[in-house]
């Protein structure tokens, strides 16, 4: 084979996601138990969610409300009448021997989020949690297994996308948008590590440009977007290698191990299910009334995609900044309040909110810290008016985050107000006089030698002087 031969055929991945979201309702999907957040095992249970004889499920109205909100956020067609089905299988995490889910008449279909089409949205109940003692960590071969029914019966919304994603990065980016959207709506904690957001991916490859779909494999339970991206990349690479080697992809379910980076097939026995779906006779259909739909519509906040678009369009923020402010809606809210306060240019304020603020508060909500949106806006305005240098303002922000207060008062108290030009001129004069060496070098064309003089000025002014202005004054004075 010569290196001048055309590249081997290019393949294109085709990815679809199946997403499970635990809803943040007050109570479980079909009983009155409060949702569990790490309580002692089996303390959030009742005869209904333990599957005692004679008990019956009753659908949680708040879960239906949240599911309708989600369907609307994704611009789905909401079914005028949807029904629950029983999905039958034996497993100790399923106390009734069946999961109540939705099957061929889901709550909603045909939606869209960003440029990905949503195939369907439906409601179901979560299974209990199994803990296996023993080497395998799985039920087969475990010495003992115990069940914690606290999670059993938690409301879940299942969201299935069309196979519209074309790269692992796009899948992860879509996942982030979905997470930001649901978080903004307040319907779920959407925390992947805690399992309130779970992702499965279907992936196949096909020769680039072709319309047919290849055989797909399923990647189960990726618990971060990073792992989703890596797992998909590994699986796409595996499929490509297989196909290039003349092999064929087999339909199977795979588990991605983030530690080893390896993919392992789940035992086929575990997936060879006939779930024997049939309509759940204990529940009545969900037939959303106009009032229910109106209530769901009214509860929808502005969603991240729309908000980012508005920030770009109306406030002329750069795309990345707008997206960050929308995906972290608490930053977006803080930003909008700061703008509302009237001081400071939107782009500058956005810059401070997306850079300086997170550098100090990490992932926390700024509302939980000392700094008020109006205070930050005033601080940014002071920087713009050159009343305070950028570096001094950063020091002020440290104080505001820790203790709150008014930026001007902090500036006065710490003596951080910008040195006035008369005073500064004198300092510059002194610095030039005592750094004659550097002056000569600058004049000889070594531009970076100016740093020594600037440094001397900054030291003298304790950072109150604006670095740019100091440079300008020095250059004027030494005529370079």
């Amino acid at each position, binding site marked *: 084979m010569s290196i001048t031969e055309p590249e081997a055929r290019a393949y294109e991945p085709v990815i679809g996601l199946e997403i499970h979201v635990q809803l943040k309702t007050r109570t479980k999907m079909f009983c009155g138990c409060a949702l569990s957040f790490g309580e002692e095992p089996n303390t959030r249970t009742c005869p209904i969610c333990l599957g005692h004889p004679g008990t019956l499920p009753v659908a949680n109205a708040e879960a239906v409300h949240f599911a309708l909100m989600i369907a609307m956020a994704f611009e789905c067609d909401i079914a005028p009448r949807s029904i629950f089905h029983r999905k039958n299988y034996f497993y100790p995490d399923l*106390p009734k021997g069946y999961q109540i889910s939705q099957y061929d008449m889901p709550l909603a279909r045909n939606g869209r989020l960003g440029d990905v089409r949503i195939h369907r949205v439906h409601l179901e109940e979560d299974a209990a949690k199994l803990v296996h003692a023993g080497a395998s960590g799985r039920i087969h071969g475990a010495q003992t297994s115990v069940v914690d029914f606290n999670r059993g019966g938690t409301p879940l919304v299942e969201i299935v996308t069309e196979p519209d994603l074309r790269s692992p990065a796009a899948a992860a980016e879509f996942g982030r948008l979905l997470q930001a959207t649901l978080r903004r709506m307040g319907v779920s904690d959407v925390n992947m590590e805690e399992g309130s957001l779970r992702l499965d991916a279907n992936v196949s490859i096909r020769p680039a440009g072709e319309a047919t779909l290849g055989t797909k494999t399923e990647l189960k339970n990726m618990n971060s977007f990073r792992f989703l991206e890596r797992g998909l990349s590994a699986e796409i690479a595996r499929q490509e290698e297989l196909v290039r080697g003349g092999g064929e992809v087999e339909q199977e379910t795979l588990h991605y191990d983030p530690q080893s980076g390896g993919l392992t097939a789940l035992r086929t026995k575990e997936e060879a299910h006939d779930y024997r779906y049939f309509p759940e006779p204990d*529940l009545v259909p969900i037939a959303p009334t106009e009032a229910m739909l109106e209530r769901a519509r009214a509860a929808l906040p502005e969603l991240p995609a729309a908000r980012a678009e508005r920030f770009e369009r109306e406030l002329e923020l750069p795309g990345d900044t707008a997206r960050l402010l929308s995906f972290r809606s608490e930053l977006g809210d803080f930003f909008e309040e700061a703008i509302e306060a009237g001081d400071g240019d939107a782009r500058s304020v956005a810059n401070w909110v997306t850079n300086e603020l997170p550098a100090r508060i990490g992932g926390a909500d700024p509302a939980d810290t000392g700094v008020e949106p109006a205070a930050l806006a005033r601080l940014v305005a002071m920087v713009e008016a050159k009343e305070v240098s950028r570096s001094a303002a950063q020091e002020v922000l440290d104080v505001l985050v820790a203790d709150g207060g008014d930026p001007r008062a902090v500036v006065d108290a710490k003596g951080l107000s910008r040195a006035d030009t008369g005073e500064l001129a004198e300092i510059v004069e002194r610095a030039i006089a005592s750094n004659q060496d550097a002056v000569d070098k600058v004049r000889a064309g070594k531009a970076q030698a100016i740093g020594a003089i600037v440094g001397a000025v900054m030291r003298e002014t304790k950072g109150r002087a604006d670095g740019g202005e100091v440079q300008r004054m020095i250059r004027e004075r030494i005529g370079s």
Partner: protein
Amino acid sequence: MTDLLSLNAAAQAGLMRNGELSPREAFDFWRARAEEDELGAYLWVAEAAPEDVGDLPPVAVKDLFCVEGVPSTAGSRILEGYRPPYTATSVRNLQSAGAAVLGKTNQDEFAMGSSNENSGYGPVQNPWDRSRVPGGSSGGSAAAVAAGAAPWAIGTDTGGSIRQPAALCGIVGLKPTYGAVSRYGMIAFASSLDQCGPLTRDVTDAALLFRHLVGRDRCDSTSVEYPEPVRLPSAERLDGLSFGVWGLEEEGLDRAVADVIRGTLGTIEELGGAVEEIELPSARQGIAAYYVIAPAEASANLARYDGVRYGPRSGDGDLDAMYEQTRHDGFGDEVKRRIMIGTYALSSGYYEAYYGTAQKVRTRIAEDFRAAFKAVDFVVTPTSPTVAFELGERTADPLAMYLSDYFTVPMSLAGIAAVSIPAGLCDGLPVGLQIAGPAFSESRVLDAAHALEKAIGFEGVPRA
């Protein structure tokens, strides 16, 4: 004390309200009667009256109703020793109306059967002839009421499980409209068909007990508010009412039973009612549809009995072996048969042919009744094709057993109201007449039944 055996429950309640009968004495009387039962009707009898015993006679409760702290096994070994942590809504309604739980009555395992021979705890004998079955699945409730071992009782009817034993024991049994009584706390057999109702000595008692059972329950999504107050029956005439007769020519109907029913039709006309023959074209497929739908639902309803959370657990080793051994030991043959039928009917590739078709038949039967009730006020049929059969006679022939519900299953599939009342005797054994009306027509059905009951003058089990 008054001879309580000679009084219906309503009369006893009247005495209690007037202060002429102490509720505690009444309870003790019936408790002693229940203790003395030799028919196998009871699986558990209350030790003493509750603190707050009210002024309704105590009620015998089919074993599948969950009663907090009281053995509730649905007649199955797989729930042996199970004492529920909660009480069924229907039972709670009766308790708060003043009727204490007298005991738990024997039944076919998980209500699957028509002779009570499928109980995991032994059969029940028919008080009219102890070599015969009491019918089923609410056989214990029917036998106890007929034998005077309970003033009244509740049972459940899925395809005839109240009406058929009531007929075979010569008492009144009402299967209410689906949704009229909460199913919460009733150990499920077939959820879309199961309905709780009274088994009583007469029609008045049935109405009184039914009145305290109905109502929407927030714990049962399929329950509804009963549209009107339940009236106690008072009619003595049937003037202006029309009765559509179905089934007298059906193959399998015992000729002597048919003759008793024909006699009753004459009584209807004497009371001023009009009788005409009607056709329910799809009703003949009722049994076939029923024996797909009910087992299908049962196969899922009974999946929870896995030995993990309650009930006996058998087998060691791995999980699947434990499941298999527990279910092997805990379930009886008929239950296993129906789980297999239901599992098969729902399997991929067979679902449409079986479950789908059965649902279509069910819809047609409901349409048949809707059409019939445009022409007539009530539909009347024999309740059971035969009188009580010998113990053991049909145990080897499931199909013959299934046909016991031939006349009762269509009403269950349609979800409508139907009552069985004693029509007379045939060879010394009771024959039941079934009167069915549209959904929520119980007050009218019971009124008509009352007029007929008065005219027929049926007397209960001859007492020594």
